[in-house]
């Protein structure tokens, strides 16, 4: 009973089309052991289970008969997903870096509980980025192992050795600047080799997938709703909440009056910049949502819609800082304060932006596997 359960678990870890075959084969081998007068049954049982476990490591996972796909599709999928997780981790870390470790609201602009929640969220975000990076590395290593081509294996070694050399330089094990150069060169070689493996045989094609309107509408509505909320809150924050947070105690009209008087602030131009930013992203999102509503069937599958709409949310949040640059600088010059954002909404929006970009990257990498049934191996 336990042996059979163990064999079933081991079979689940095999490539999809090999599972049923090997499970039945192992069961038959065990059942037939007595026919061969193999009396030490417990040893035989153990041997078969160990054999099954060994097979998990040694089996050629990219064999077309096991995957139902052309050779090369599995390592490419691993590499694509690994790269997607790396991109997600990079998006999170990059936004944290751009915002100087996260925007801290001005004193009085947020309650102590909100400040504590923001602080905790900042730590969680970094942990998530680390987990995504490690998972991405595991998938990239899996890509190199399953590809079994010389180029893939060299790329894998280079992708591991390059960062290892850089780490050695950072921690001080190697002092020469040549070490840094070597590390980057080896890493670059690994990345280039990996890209060649990903783009190599079989050729990349746009898989024909379709989704019904019923499948598309919820994603289109949710995505556009999120974008509209982010853009509306972001725009109001730029011209109302953030100035009030930066200069507490003054009426909004007074704040702008002083900005015009002391700094020559042009309200009209800055309102155009902020509203132009809002209209641009709302129009882009509206266009995508409208296209998603057209036609009974459409190649805009929920995943593809999510990629586009999340990408728009991430981009809108990123470019918001440019739209509000004039207001922020004038606030700084007029009141002799820092030019960075200081409201609670300003602190929260980057989280939406980085998770939207990370989500778009992961959705882009997680294209569904196309199962076509056993494919004969090339002779």
């Amino acid at each position: 009973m336990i042996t059979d359960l163990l064999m079933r678990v081991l079979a689940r870890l095999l490539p999809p089309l090999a599972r049923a075959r090997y499970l039945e084969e192992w069961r038959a081998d065990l059942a037939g052991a007595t026919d061969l007068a193999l009396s030490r049954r417990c040893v035989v049982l153990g041997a078969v289970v160990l054999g099954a476990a060994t097979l998990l490591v040694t089996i050629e996972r990219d064999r077309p008969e096991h995957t139902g796909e052309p050779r090369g599709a599995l390592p490419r999928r691993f590499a694509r997903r690994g790269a997607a997780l790396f991109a997600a981790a990079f998006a999170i870390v990059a936004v944290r870096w751009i915002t100087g470790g996260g925007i801290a609201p001005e004193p009085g602009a947020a309650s102590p509980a909100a400040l504590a929640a923001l602080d905790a969220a900042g730590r969680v975000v970094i942990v998530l980025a680390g987990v995504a990076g490690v998972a991405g590395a595991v998938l990239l290593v899996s890509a190199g192992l399953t590809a079994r081509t010389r180029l893939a294996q060299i790329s894998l070694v280079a992708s591991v050795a390059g960062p290892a050399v850089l780490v050695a330089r950072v921690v001080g094990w190697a002092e020469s600047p040549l070490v840094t150069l070597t590390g980057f060169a080896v890493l670059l070689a690994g990345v280039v080799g990996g890209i060649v493996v990903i783009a190599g045989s079989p050729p990349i094609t746009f898989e024909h997938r379709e989704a019904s309107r019923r499948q598309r509408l919820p994603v289109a509505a949710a995505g556009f709703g999120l974008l509209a909320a982010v853009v509306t809150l972001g725009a109001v924050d730029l011209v109302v909440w953030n100035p009030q947070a930066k200069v507490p105690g003054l009426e909004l009209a007074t704040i702008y009056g002083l900005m015009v008087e002391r700094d020559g602030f042009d309200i009209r131009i800055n309102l155009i910049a902020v509203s132009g930013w809002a209209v641009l992203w709302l129009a882009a999102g509206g266009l995508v949502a409208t296209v998603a509503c057209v036609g009974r069937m459409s190649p805009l599958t929920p995943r593809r819609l999510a990629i586009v709409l999340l990408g728009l949310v991430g981009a809108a949040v990123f470019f918001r800082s440019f739209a509000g640059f004039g207001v922020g600088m004038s606030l700084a010059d007029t009141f002799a304060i820092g030019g960075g954002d200081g409201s609670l909404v300003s602190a929260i929006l980057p989280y939406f932006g980085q998770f939207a970009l990370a989500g778009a990257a992961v959705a882009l990498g997680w294209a569904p596997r196309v199962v076509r049934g056993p494919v004969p191996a090339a002779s």
Partner: protein
Amino acid sequence: MTPLSRMTAATSDVLRTLVDGDGGDGRGVWGMLVIKRTGRPAGSVYPILERLEGAGWVSSSWESASERSGPRRRLYELTSEGAETARGILAKATTSEPRKSGHRESEPGGSERRAGGAPAVRVSTDAVPA
């Protein structure tokens, strides 16, 4: 058929078993029979059979469903090209064997052989589950 990247003693034993004959029904040998005849542990035999099949040396098929109740045995047999190449390799190994020191180096976790070349059935004790 693609050439094997390495030819270990265990692979030779499996090939010899496949060349020597079927399981009595004329349609190949099943995994446990290979394990018994080679005296190699299942941890070696299953991966070797998988590797040989992937390289096109061996083909496998299910025994016919009516032969026995329960799970079907997977029967392995050499392809025509695989059989020809395997015989060549084994013949070469046989002619070079007398020149060696007279004893066979056993692989880690592998089996011993009786005098006279008949494989002794011994499943490695390493394979006993905890």
